[in-house]
């Protein structure tokens, strides 16, 4: 019993910051909604209620969450060993393009071969870009913040070139590639929705990586590097190798995000199709405290908001765009746990107060509210 209580407390400590951040983000978003002339309570109620109002809407929630799961887990994996992978967008695009090309031009294969090749191709393309970033960091000391951002631009231009010029579908005005073969299509889980089997891949990978992070030697090394680089070096962990592994893995997941969108939803690479999946991954992972499995949960949470807002947008004129604002607020609040502390305690807490004082504080606050 005491153990249970202790575990409960440990879990609460772990999820306290994300939950508070999410609530604060909802409040901040609510203020924005109120300023825009809507009743935030009504809007939030509608969003959550609509998201679960029908099977189709629930499917839509998970469909929205699927790409975010991939990129969220991708960011989390890199973040675990202290890397900032701002290149998700580029890695995602390269994976998407690769799978689109493989899907369209690899002909005559049975589905059992063709689909895995396309999926794998997407993952490998993303992994190559991620691996390149790590190599540049290890070999030349180039900071990944700069190189990932550069690679994003280069890849965006390159895939745009590819779908506009050499691989442009015949007769199309807008830049897009040929439609993929039927043998490369990821099946739908529910008709007339965007929910595909890719979500199982995302969840399975998240579980697998959760296990890898928690149980494997590599995962252990990644955690040590992320938490204390110097101790990792002292212990003889080959930091460069782990960086390479982690960045490539992160890139592969981002590539899978692209592949899942192409093979399951769009069936071709359309110029500018990305709805900021890469950048959203950062919000998803941040809310999940950079944990792969929690990233799935936080992706679903964002999926609810996104899908709910889209549905609400159809029936009312509440803009769906406020969802990304809330998403951004989440990162702002999650990034600065000290700020949450400061906001929640209504004072600038620079040092930790002694336990007694803290309690007093809490009482004080409760009395105040």
């Amino acid at each position, binding site marked *: 019993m005491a153990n249970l209580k202790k575990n409960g407390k440990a879990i609460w400590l772990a999820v306290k910051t994300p939950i508070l951040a999410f609530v604060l983000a909802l409040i901040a978003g609510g203020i924005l909604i109120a300023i825009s002339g809507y009743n935030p309570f009504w809007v939030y109620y509608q969003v959550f209620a609509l998201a679960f109002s029908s099977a189709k809407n629930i499917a839509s929630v998970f469909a929205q969450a699927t790409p975010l799961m991939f990129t969220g887990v991708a960011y989390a994996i890199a973040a675990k060993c202290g890397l900032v992978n701002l290149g998700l967008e580029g890695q995602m695009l390269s994976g998407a393009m690769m799978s689109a090309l493989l899907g369209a031009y690899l002909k005559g294969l049975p589905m059992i071969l063709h689909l895995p090749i396309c999926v794998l191709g997407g993952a490998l393309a993303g992994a190559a870009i991620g691996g390149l970033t790590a190599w540049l960091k290890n070999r030349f000391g180039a900071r990944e913040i700069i190189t990932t951002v550069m690679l994003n631009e280069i890849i965006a231009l390159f895939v745009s070139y590819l779908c506009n010029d050499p691989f442009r579908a015949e007769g199309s005005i807008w830049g897009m590639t040929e439609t993929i073969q039927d043998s490369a299509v990821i099946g739908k889980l529910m008709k007339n929705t965007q929910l595909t089997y890719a979500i199982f891949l995302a969840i399975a990978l998240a579980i697998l990586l959760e296990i890898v992070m928690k*149980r*494997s*030697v*590599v995962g*252990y*090394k990644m*955690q*040590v590097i992320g*938490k*204390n680089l*110097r*101790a990792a*070096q*002292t*212990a*003889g*962990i*080959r930091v460069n190798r782990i960086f390479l592994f982690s960045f490539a893995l992160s890139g592969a997941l981002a590539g899978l995000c692209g592949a899942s969108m192409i093979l399951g939803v769009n069936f071709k690479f359309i110029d500018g199709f990305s709805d900021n999946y890469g950048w959203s991954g950062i919000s998803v992972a941040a809310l999940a405290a950079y944990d792969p499995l929690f990233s799935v949960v936080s992706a679903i949470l964002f999926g609810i908001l996104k899908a709910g807002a889209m549905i609400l947008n159809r029936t009312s004129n509440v803009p769906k765009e406020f969802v990304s604002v809330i998403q951004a607020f989440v990162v702002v609040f999650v990034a600065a746990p000290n700020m949450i502390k400061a906001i929640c305690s209504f004072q600038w807490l620079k040092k930790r107060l002694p336990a007694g004082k803290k309690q007093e504080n809490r009482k004080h606050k409760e009395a105040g509210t």
Partner: protein
Amino acid sequence: MNVIEMKNISKSFPGTKAVDAVDFRLEQGEILSLLGENGAGKTTLMKILYGMHSMDTGEIFFKGRPVEIKKPLDAINLGICMVHQHFMLVSAFTVADNIIAGDEPCKGIFVDKKKEYQVVKDLIEEFHFNIDPHAKVGKLSVGEQQRVEILKTLYRKAEVIILDEPTAVLTPKEVDDLFVVLKNLRASGKSIVIITHKLKETKAIADRVMVLRDGKLIRDDVDPAQASFTDLSDMMVGRHVDLGVVERAKSRGDVIFSVENLTLREKGHDVLDAINLKLHSGEILGIAGIEGNGQTQLLECITGLRQPQSMDLRLRGEPVKGGPSAFLRKGLAHIPEDRNAMGLVASMSISDNLILGYQDTPEYANHGFLRRKTILEQADTLRQEFQVKAPDSQTKVGALSGGNAQKVIIARALSKKPDVLIVAQPTRGVDVGASEYIRGRIRQLRDGGAAILLVSADLDEVMQLSDRIAVMYEGKLVYEVEADVLSDVELGMLMTGGSLADLKKGKEEGNG
């Protein structure tokens, strides 16, 4: 006349009382040597005076009137300047820019470049410093950089100049030059404080010596001309009555670990100079020395963290090369000097920390996955065996006391039955009980036939544990001797750059 008086100054940091009710005074036109071991509170006391640390209690008087110094600018405005041990210089700036930054000669909002260089040039000439004001500071030698720091204080018309370990990084020639400079400054009426632990230099330059030990004032009226090296060393190190348990090696075996011709060059000078070491199985070789004499670099080189210019390291006659993991695999265990920065991951559990560095061994890993059950079971066993006080093995190491955290590292290194153990500062920040226990475990390992190299800034510890002692001073092993041959005073003398002959002379003076 006292330029500065500090009364009843106290300052605590979490866990330690750095300065304990100390009174301090500085007279006009004197050079005061603030003497003490590392951690005696010298620097903290001076940083309080300079406004970098706040004090818990106490008062400061400047020329007799009480002043409040809350930030460095307050001190600077009073004419109190400090030259820090780690220079506060911007490598990318020129000498002149470094000197004037924060108090620039201006024409409107623009820095008056002409005046800037003129003023700096005049200043350099006035004190015969021979530095090019246009040179980038990053290109200067350490001695020249120090002169830039002194120029910074002179430019600010400092009346009181505090120098923190000014000779720590200088060559003997540069030290002589510095002393000439300091004497000139004294002649021009400046009051100077030198924070140091070097006796020779104290005797060479100081007018008066103030000794701190463990944050407390021991004496503040020592006349360096009258006091002998022995006296000063006694005051500084203190009489160590009880060394605790002493058990020397019973049987010493063959040489199993040797380092030859270890030389490491850093920024143009030899940080380690042709070091030779031999460790026999079943003995502890202690390296005594004041911190900053190359111990850190020695440790880095012989644990594979750093590649020196030359080194021949052998374990049982076999050369060992590569990174730290190669060293670990060959049976060279390492207890790093900075427990929290290098040895442990605070936000991970005890059991996770117990496998750090050994995570790839078949004992803990199976096809790339950790043997969680074995690891946990072993963690529970080790936790009990090594008396780590924690509710369970899942407790985060960051939540442990210093002693218990150190026991985790000791348990990790010792449980692998290493042939050679390289251990640095094993009991730093560890309470007495745990220290004794840790030392006992190290002795036990020795009696099992391992060869142990102990590096510690705590002379007591070196004397208590070692079977053989080598003294390190300025990157060299200057003396090597069997345990129990030299007294603490004699060792202290060697550690601070003196020789045993100095000591004899001092004794004769004392007798005569």
